[in-house]
């Protein structure tokens, strides 16, 4: 009850904004009509009308297809980047293994100096 009273009081206060209603300045109406009617109107092409039947179905499908393409491209990009990263890691790993192997062989062959080993 009190809430309703408060609301009515607030509404009565807000009605003050009705005071701000003004008459249209003289000449505005004729100026608008004069200027606007010399402007070209937007032509509505036959394609602008709402599609029917299979066209409507295809049009409805198009946003879904766009989403599917976007999703597909993202997945391909992620897989590609992941593949590139794994490939690089493996190459680096192999190079390190080759080096270790060479050191071991050098030790066995006795080509490597003690200082180099330490």
């Amino acid at each position, binding site marked *: 009850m009190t809430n309703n009273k408060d609301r009515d009081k*607030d509404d009565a206060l*807000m009605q003050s904004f009705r005071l*701000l209603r003004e008459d249209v300045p003289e000449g505005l*109406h004729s100026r608008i009509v004069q200027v606007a*009617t010399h402007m070209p109107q*937007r032509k*509505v092409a036959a394609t602008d009308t709402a599609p029917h039947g299979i066209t409507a179905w295809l049009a409805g499908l198009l946003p879904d297809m766009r989403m599917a393409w976007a999703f597909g491209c993202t997945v391909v990009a992620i897989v590609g980047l992941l593949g590139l990263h794994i490939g690089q890691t493996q190459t680096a790993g192999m190079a390190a293994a080759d080096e270790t192997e060479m050191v071991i062989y050098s030790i066995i062959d006795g080509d490597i100096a003690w200082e180099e080993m330490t």
Partner: protein
Amino acid sequence: MALLQQQNNNDPSDDTLMSAVAEGDARAFDVLVKRHLKRAYNVAYGMVYNATDAQDVAQDAMMRVWMYAPTWRAGEAAVTTWMHRIVVNCCYDFLRKKSRLPQGGDISPDIQDMTANTESDYAEAEKKKRLRAMLRSLPERQRMAVTLCYLDEMSNAEAAAVMGVHIKALEGLLVRARKALKPMLETLGQD
């Protein structure tokens, strides 16, 4: 013209007028502007900073009505709602452009408020000035909600449709606006 002539009564409906305007009927446009310009101008005046800017916005909106009339479809939206939506968009466009101007360049004195002659005229002009300042203190969307619902006296449902928001969202905007304006309106009543 032909469509207008088919209407024997002097008061063709908005839908009839819009159909005629869509076909390039300048006479129908003249009638439509006469019917809706006052509301469009007052909504614009509620949103922008002075009468000159409000005239520019109202003119821009009415020109868009003429240009885009062929895209209006009967039954999709009432003419008043469609036209008000254009006015609202023009107001937002205008305010966005103004906000890009350097500080201090956006609020210019209102010539209309300075034309008061008698004491009562002056008091009323002063009251209006304060009311406009109160409106301006609100954020854009709250200001639009107050302008549509209290200045233009639209129903909440209509105003929500014009602003493109849910009716609950509009009510929320009005509640916040009322809360912010209440102390200022109370002091205005005391003076």
